[in-house]
């Protein structure tokens, strides 16, 4: 989940960067293509440092590749040390920006402001959808909704032919066998976001605390995204939550989800996740784009897939060191470019929808 959100966020930033660069009028080359447009935004500190969320690490790898190709001689070292460590290192001034599953909170806001000498902004650049992946021989296109998913993952619904599931899947032969729940046994932002979704979208049917450990009280744990995907593939009649790329690679079925608006079941595609991102509410002020994720989880927009995790890049709005600001801006601009955004679905993230990307672009352009 974390991964996916981050990717989406990165995509947004990249898009923003693109726009910025397009606006800038340092024409270096004749080519009107993307690379040329991006190149306009290059410059500043050559070796950037960032650290934080591992969920966006794969997106970062892609962005860095694009960044190095676009801006010759410039690079970024991203250390996926975990969101908490990333925020601490940013506040401590060891890194130029942080990747994080959560926005700055509480006293971190003040500390970050001190470090920057200006307001720190949370930019949700990378979004990753979470799939409800299942292995149920003979059943395709399973449909679930928030309350039913919650009841499966807290043990209230225990067999596949339960009326709650049957009601959503008319005409399908659901076997009368127990549901085996596979959960992440390691601490994970995916688990936390998934449980946040369950709490937000289940009309209180979940009723468990959302932390980075699974609290549903049923099932068997497996380590890591690959672990739960493998466990689900090897265990008939099982179900799990996992980043969509892992579900696809393991050949698992991915449930269609009816979002809080009721309506038609929504399959998980970059488009449907993008629809949900377009409608997410921003609670931050101005360019500080802190998201209200509950508005994503409970989206009522048609054709919007509601389960995704968002990851932020936490940056200074005005860097005390000008070359650093310019470098960060160049990187984020590249990350928001279509070139960088294109490859994201392969890595399990979604490209940012246009309007949201524009918004991030505006924010990145305002970094000094």
């Amino acid at each position, binding site marked *: 989940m974390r991964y996916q959100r981050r990717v989406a966020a990165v995509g947004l930033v990249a898009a923003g960067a693109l726009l910025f660069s397009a606006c800038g009028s340092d024409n270096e080359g004749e080519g009107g293509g993307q690379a040329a447009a991006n190149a306009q935004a290059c410059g500043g500190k050559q070796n950037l440092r960032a650290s934080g969320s*591992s969920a966006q690490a794969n997106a970062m790898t892609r962005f860095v590749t694009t960044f190095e190709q676009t801006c010759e001689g410039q690079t970024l070292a991203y250390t996926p040390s*975990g969101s*908490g*460590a990333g925020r*601490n290192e940013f506040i401590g001034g060891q890194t130029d920006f942080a990747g994080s599953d959560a926005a700055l909170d509480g006293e971190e806001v003040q500390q970050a402001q001190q470090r920057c000498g200006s307001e720190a902004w949370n930019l949700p650049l990378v979004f990753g959808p979470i799939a409800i992946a299942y292995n149920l021989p003979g059943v395709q296109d399973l449909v679930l909704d928030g309350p039913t998913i919650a009841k499966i993952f807290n043990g209230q619904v225990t067999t596949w032919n339960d009326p709650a599931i049957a009601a959503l899947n008319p005409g399908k032969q659901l076997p009368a066998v*127990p549901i*085996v*729940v596979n*959960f992440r*046994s*390691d*601490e994970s932002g995916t688990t936390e976001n998934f449980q946040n979704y369950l709490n937000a979208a289940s009309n209180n049917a979940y009723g468990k605390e959302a*932390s*980075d*450990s*699974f*609290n*549903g*009280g*049923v*099932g*068997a*744990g*497996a*380590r890591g995204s690959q*672990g739960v995907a*493998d*466990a689900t593939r*090897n*265990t008939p009649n*099982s179900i799990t939550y996992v980043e969509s790329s892992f579900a696809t690679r393991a050949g698992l079925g991915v449930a269609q989800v009816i979002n809080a608006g009721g309506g038609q079941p929504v399959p998980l595609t970059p488009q449907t996740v993008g629809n949900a991102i377009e409608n997410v509410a921003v609670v931050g002020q101005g360019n500080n784009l802190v998201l209200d994720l509950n508005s994503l989880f409970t989206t009522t927009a048609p054709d919007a897939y509601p389960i995704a995790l968002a990851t932020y890049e936490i940056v200074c709005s005005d860097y005390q060191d000008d070359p650093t600001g310019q470098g960060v801006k160049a990187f984020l601009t590249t990350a928001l470019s279509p070139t960088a955004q294109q490859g994201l679905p392969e890595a399990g993230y979604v490209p940012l929808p246009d309007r949201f990307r524009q918004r991030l672009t505006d924010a990145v352009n305002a970094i000094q």
Partner: protein
Amino acid sequence: MSERIDQRAPSETDSGPASSPGVPAPPPGTRRRPSSRRGETIFRSLTTGSGVLVVAAIAAIGVFLLIQAVPSLLANQADFLTFPSFNTGDPDNLAFGIRDIFLVTMFSSVFALVLAMPIALGVALFLTNYAPRALARPFAYIVDLLAAVPSIIYGLWGILVLAPAILPIAEWLNANLGWIFLFADGNLPVLSGTIFTGGVVLAVMILPIVTAVTREVFAQTPRFQIEAAKALGATRWEVIKMATLPYGRSGYIAGSMLGLGRALGETIAVLIVIRASTSPMGFSLFDGGYTFASLIASAASEFSQPLPTGAYISAGLVLFVLTFIVNALARLIAGGKVNG
């Protein structure tokens, strides 16, 4: 050790001049003496240093574990020895205990030992008493090679290949012998990725060390005992029973204890194979959970705050002590009989 060297050193230097009074070469003798004495001193301090270094490192590890663990143990709101779960998410409200971890660790390791010991005994006897010489060498080599396989490989093999393969056995045991607590329904909804699966993987992993030690000890069975038994008209099995087994028994047990020590501390393979559960451990081989080592490994990437980290380190301290005890037992048994 240093005492022994001290004793030997003077006696050697004494014997040097004592043996050479007849030879009229005092200048080379005196020249050689200081240099050899200096070499003696350097070598002695090097060996002593190595010995001290190891002991100091072990002591330092113990002290480190203790210092890191104490604050968390004091902040712990649950009983460390009997609480079944390990909740360290909220640093202000730590509640962790090692009951389940201890049980899973012991169940998986002892089960592995129960599986590995007879096989290791058989392999060792085969290699020392039955196998033709031409076969014994390469065969022993192959068994030793098992120890060279990285544990991550064992983990992947265990969960992807072995777990599905032994699932029918687990199902049969559960269905037919479920009334024995060991084979009762566990706290997992599945029968693969349990302590049962993990124990089989561990058994394969500790097989080489148990076999190697046992084989070495059996191979040292005094020739005269074997020949005496043969002279009495003993068959090969009787030779084994009368000479090899009594002589090698303590070595066999010591080797098994070393294997147990390895099983207790095995990390990554166990982490991959044995699945976590949300409910406490019963006393079944079909339970899941964490061992000391796998628990620490699973949380290691999130060690950012001192108190939760200390909680895991306190679990590590228990494992440290446990392994120490097992190894001490092994030494005690081995030292007691083989040499005597």
